[in-house]
């Protein structure tokens, strides 16, 4: 069964497999953009209806799972669904089935293959959420709006919107993710961010607004760079350690967006 890489689509697809009384070993969930039919398989497209039935079914599956397995496991499902892994829908599908059969014991199940595969997804997304909270960098535009462009490896922006809304409650800001064609918007005093899907052109236009920063913004960035360089201590670098501790904490794929590294690779 093909579904979209979105929480509601994956959950609703699992709901459909239950409603259809399909035998679990005869159903495989795949993301539409990564679907490759195997010999003897039939493809069922899913999630194109626009009447709210997908969301309603997803809500039903989610609340049923939450009731059966607890809030912690349900939260982990939301995290796992943000993964960019090609096999994500099937891993989540197997975990949900395991949960519906094990109930509250699911949280303690850390050795079954389904739980292990699922835990890996959760770990990856949690780690990328932390990277997002750490390495998003805002630039203030002359009109007072804060703008940031960030390209995480997983679809983390919807998961960290509340964090930034709490932190910058009085500010108007936007974070654009050109990779997942998504942005989060925040208006002053709002307790949460709005998540908006974008087309490629709008994402590029929004991302280009970072370059509108004025003289004062450039001064703040220069101050930050000066501070960053002043923090370095001699006798503790790569040559003295035998390995690059900075690169292991701060992956190089983020460096181009960090003013303190000034676009260094």
């Amino acid at each position, binding site marked *: 069964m093909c579904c979209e890489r979105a929480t509601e689509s994956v959950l609703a697809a699992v709901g459909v497999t239950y409603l259809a009384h399909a035998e679990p070993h005869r159903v495989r969930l795949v993301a539409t953009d990564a679907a490759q039919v195997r010999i003897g398989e039939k493809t069922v497209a899913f999630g194109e209806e626009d009447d709210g039935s997908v969301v309603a079914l997803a809500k039903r599956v989610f609340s049923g799972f939450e009731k059966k397995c607890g809030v912690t496991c349900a939260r982990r499902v939301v995290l796992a669904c943000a993964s960019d892994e090609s096999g994500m829908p099937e891993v989540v599908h197997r975990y949900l089935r395991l949960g519906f059969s094990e109930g509250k014991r699911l949280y303690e199940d850390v050795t079954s293959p389904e739980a292990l595969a699922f835990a890996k997804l959760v770990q990856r997304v949690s780690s990328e959420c932390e990277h997002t909270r750490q390495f998003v960098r805002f630039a*203030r535009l002359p009109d007072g709006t804060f703008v940031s462009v960030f390209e995480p490896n997983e679809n983390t922006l919807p998961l960290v919107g509340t964090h930034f809304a709490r932190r910058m409650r009085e500010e108007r800001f936007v974070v654009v993710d050109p990779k997942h064609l998504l942005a989060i918007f925040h208006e002053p005093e709002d307790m949460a961010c709005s998540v908006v899907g974008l087309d490629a052109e709008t994402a590029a236009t929004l991302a280009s607004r970072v370059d509108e920063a004025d003289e004062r913004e450039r001064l703040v960035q220069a101050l930050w760079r000066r501070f960053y360089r002043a*923090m370095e201590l001699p006798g503790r670098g790569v040559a003295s350690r035998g390995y690059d501790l900075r690169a*292991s904490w701060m992956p190089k794929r983020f460096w181009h967006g960090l003013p303190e590294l000034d676009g260094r690779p």
Partner: protein
Amino acid sequence: MDKLTKLGILAEAARFDAACTSSGVTRGPREGMVGDTCASGLCHSFSADGRCITLLKVLMSNACSYDCAYCVNRRGASCLRATFEPRELAELTVDFYKRNYIEGLFLSSAVLGNPDNTTERMIACLEALRGEFRFNGYVHAKVIPGSSPELVNRLGRLADRLSVNLELPSRASLASLCPDKDARSVMAPMAQIATTRHAEEQALLDSPAGKKALARRHREKGSYVSEGMQVTSVGVRYTLGRPTSAVPNALRKFVPAGQSTQIIVGATPEDDNHILQLSKSLYDHYGLKRIFFSAYMPMVEDSRLPDRETPVPLRREHRLYQADWLMRYYAFTPDELATPSRPWLDLDVDPKLAWALAHIEAFPVEIMDAPLETLLRVPGIGPVGARRILAARRTRRLCMDDLQGLGVAFKRARYFVTCGGKRDPAAPLNPELIRQKVVSDAAGSKYNATRRQAEGQLSLF
């Protein structure tokens, strides 16, 4: 002097302080204010040497009237001097915070005239930050030894965490290298902070919010094990630690994130056993949240100090942090890690592995029935692995292959465990062979090899 130059001077002057955490207190957003805090902290950047940058760590001023031998800012040093205006620093903090560069401010200072003058200036900065700029994020402030108790009290109501640097691990070393400080002036504010926090805790426990928190704590109360240590379950981890206060930090007004200190290691001859005993005593008596160890960096020429060519004792600092962690979360005592007869930590092998090799008769441990305290003493098994083992063995019989999937560092643990009575077939049985294999694996790591080369055969004294 322009802001850029000033910031450069005052940040470079502050970089030798190892502490840079924003942890310990959760405070939600407030209307009309900027920011919040999160108990787990958040690292926003990492310096070229790999140290975390989470706070704007600067000195208020580096124009010092003291003459501590090891300090680059000492009275007699020939360096550029600068001083921030209180409002200027507060504004810079908020500018950085709003761009997601930092979690807050780490404010320290050289002694500008006298301790009270310096503290008043720091208070003026924090008042501007909390008042005019409505900053609700994290603030760590350094207490200047010798400051009057009233000022320490005011500082503690503006900052989330206070720290008083112990600097050197003994009275004799402090007297020798810091002629303007004495142990009393360092310990007095530490005791004041501990006493004030305790008094506030008692008052809060009598309040309705405190009673509610206490009732919740009783419901969740964990089991106590050796020496008053308590099993704590945080998310996916089980640790053994000192019992924590029933009062949530968010309810406190005075130093809600507690106090910490810093000790410079390698500048004076105290051994690791002495430093660990001292640390344990500070945790027990003053309820410190953290002790930071800072490897001495020979920057200044002075006959009382190690030679300037002496390498930075980076591995010693690293091993002390590991030992400190083992004392706080694994219920190890200082004498187990560095005994009075062998008072130095092994630089090639981590303290837990060194302890296991010295107590090889206590192994192997049976995974299927070992209690949490025993599991946590196995090299390669941490709080996450221990919790997963306890959960998994309730439902099924575990084998060696399962351990790797449970978050156990199997490469290290394999020599010290059995599963269902079976050992890892590739692990030697003879304790001496185990010791040789484990030590050669650890000593051959790139980190150890590089540091050994850097440290050479030089002796500190």
